């Protein structure tokens, strides 16, 4: 009797199984409903096309082409964004500068994520004195305002760094320096998030189940806990890209950023305050591009946050 009853169960269950939305689908739906996030994503695509697609129209040599006769020309038909102090075309420089700014943003976040996840995961998983030590260190780093720390670090690594060759292009070695120091000064927040996540996930029953099974710590960290912490890491990582781009702009603005001839949106602004009045095109265009990029990334990050957060309020609009 039992057998039939139970097989009935299965039959009925299958029959009435409605296709539940997968978490992925739900996330996508929530993201798409976030209008600003979609706008941000589109803007971001346009900006990426601008920076990387523009490279098919203009060469890097053109971006660095100086013509002292054309010094500080205002925007015109030939130079839609005007020229800088040595007569380089600002439009082309924003294209190549954009590549570096975006590269710095992304790469710095990679550094940040690696550090943050590693430190957060170890502290959160092992707890005890390891946690105490790592968190004290994290807190110490946190206690120094990021810009100050960035400046000190930029100075520290500011000696001579050889140029690097990547994708057949020559970059100022300072690009790497900036990437590293932005990463080094921004992982703390992520580490805390990851730690908190690990702390709560390690008490979750599926992790206990893995312990009961005899699974090794390594597998538990990397196969059970980490994949379940991905969402907050991605959200925080996305928002960090915006922050990294801003950080680059700040230190470059203060003259400690990426060294010429490599252009970035940030270092195109270096000393801009000397031209507030006389040559506003020098700072308006790269400045606007930074704002647009950061804004778009923040929009996307916000959308992602709402998308991955099941507690996020349901948007009726």
């Amino acid at each position, binding site marked *: 009797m039992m057998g039939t009853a139970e097989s009935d169960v299965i039959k009925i269950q299958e029959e009435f199984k409605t296709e539940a939305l997968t978490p992925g689908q739900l996330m996508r739906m929530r993201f798409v409903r976030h209008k*600003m996030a979609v706008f941000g994503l589109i803007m971001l695509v346009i900006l990426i096309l601008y920076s990387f697609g523009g490279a098919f129209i203009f060469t890097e040599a053109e971006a660095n082409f100086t013509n002292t006769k054309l010094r500080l020309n205002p925007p015109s038909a030939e130079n839609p964004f005007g020229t800088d102090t040595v007569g380089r075309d600002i439009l082309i420089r924003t294209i190549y500068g954009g590549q570096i700014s975006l590269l710095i943003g992304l790469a710095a976040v990679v550094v940040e994520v690696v550090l943050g996840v590693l430190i957060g995961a170890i502290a959160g998983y092992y707890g005890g004195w390891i946690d105490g030590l790592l968190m004290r260190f994290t807190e110490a780093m946190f206690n*120094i305002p990021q810009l100050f720390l960035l400046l*000190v670090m930029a*100075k520290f690594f500011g000696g001579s760094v050889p140029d690097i060759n990547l994708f057949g292009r020559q970059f100022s070695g300072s690009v790497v320096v900036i990437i590293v120091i932005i990463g080094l000064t921004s992982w703390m927040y992520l580490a805390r998030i990851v730690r908190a996540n690990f702390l709560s996930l390690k008490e979750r029953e599926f992790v206990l189940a893995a312990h009961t099974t005899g699974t090794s710590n390594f597998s538990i960290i990397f196969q059970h806990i980490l994949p379940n912490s991905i969402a907050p890491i991605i959200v925080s990582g996305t928002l960090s890209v915006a922050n990294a781009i801003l950080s680059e702009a700040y230190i470059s603005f203060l003259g400690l950023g990426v060294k010429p001839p490599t252009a970035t949106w940030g270092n195109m602004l270096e000393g801009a*305050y000397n031209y*507030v*009045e006389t040559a506003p095109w020098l700072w308006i265009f790269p400045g606007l591009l930074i704002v647009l990029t950061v804004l778009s990334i923040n929009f996307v990050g916000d959308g992602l946050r709402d998308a991955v957060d099941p507690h996020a309020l349901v948007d009726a609009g």
Partner: protein
Amino acid sequence: MTRYIIRRILQAIPLLFIISVLLFVLMINTGDPLSTMGGRRVTRPEDRERLSRQLGLDQPIYKQYLFWLIGNDWTKVDLDGDGTAETQGTRKGILRGDFGTSMVQRGKEVTDIILDRLPNTLLLMIPTEIIVIALSLAVGVYSALRQYSATDHIITGLSFIGYSMPIFFIALVSMYIFGVNFKAWGLPYLPTVGMFDPKVGKTTGQVIQHMILPIFSLTVITAAGYSRFVRSQMLEVISEDYIRTARAKGLPNRMVITGHALKNAALPLVTIVGLDVPLLLGGAVVTESIFAWPGMGRLFIDHLSRSDTPVVMGILMMISVAVILSQLITDIIYAWLDPRIRYS
């Protein structure tokens, strides 16, 4: 409570130790304050060699740190370079309140250098913070209560823009508009640099006029972040069970918001403000640079660019102490405001 405070202060000690070691190592290995001492010419080798000995820069880093920390009046130093230390050291070390003297402003106490600038920074930052808190509470709560309304969308959009804008950009734009262009158009324009017009002198009116643009720029950036935070806190709070309970009691909406939601929503802001306040001491590096405000931020940049370790360390340690103190004060205020912590 006193025991708690003492314990917290004791806990801060290892923290400050880590911070100071970290920064000291970075600073000592960064640039050479002696290299620019020759003015427009490269410093002479003899002078460099002598000065580095006399200022203790030739010592191994742990010794330099030790002297910075606890002073060198317990030992002798070699001033004349004959290899024997014969002169009694005079430094007391930061633990005894001696922040040392500046390398580039030889003989000038770091404490004096900092105290010269601190009031200016506070003059800029305290009003900013007050405006920011008031503004973001008002805007954030308003926006949350009218979620998805046109106003909310506009406020959200604007705060996103403010939040995404590098401060130098808003500063340059506001300078360009309110300083440069208003002047060009013959409108009343705002001064863009310094604290006062030397022709008029340091009058209250002058200082206030000069404060407008920097405060405006700082406010736009900070208030944007804060108001987004307040808005999301408020949204979270009004979906809490206890708000439903309050409504179920038949309280009018206004009472539900002011009596029940606001305090819960504003509480976390205390933490954020507590985290930010000490940073104000450091001044807004960029804002002060652009608007030529003689505050801590510019001081920091100037001395960092000349590798003046004592001054840079002084500023950074002061901020770190302030951060820790302010976290402690935040905790106390939080406990005072939040009964869950007060009674546990």
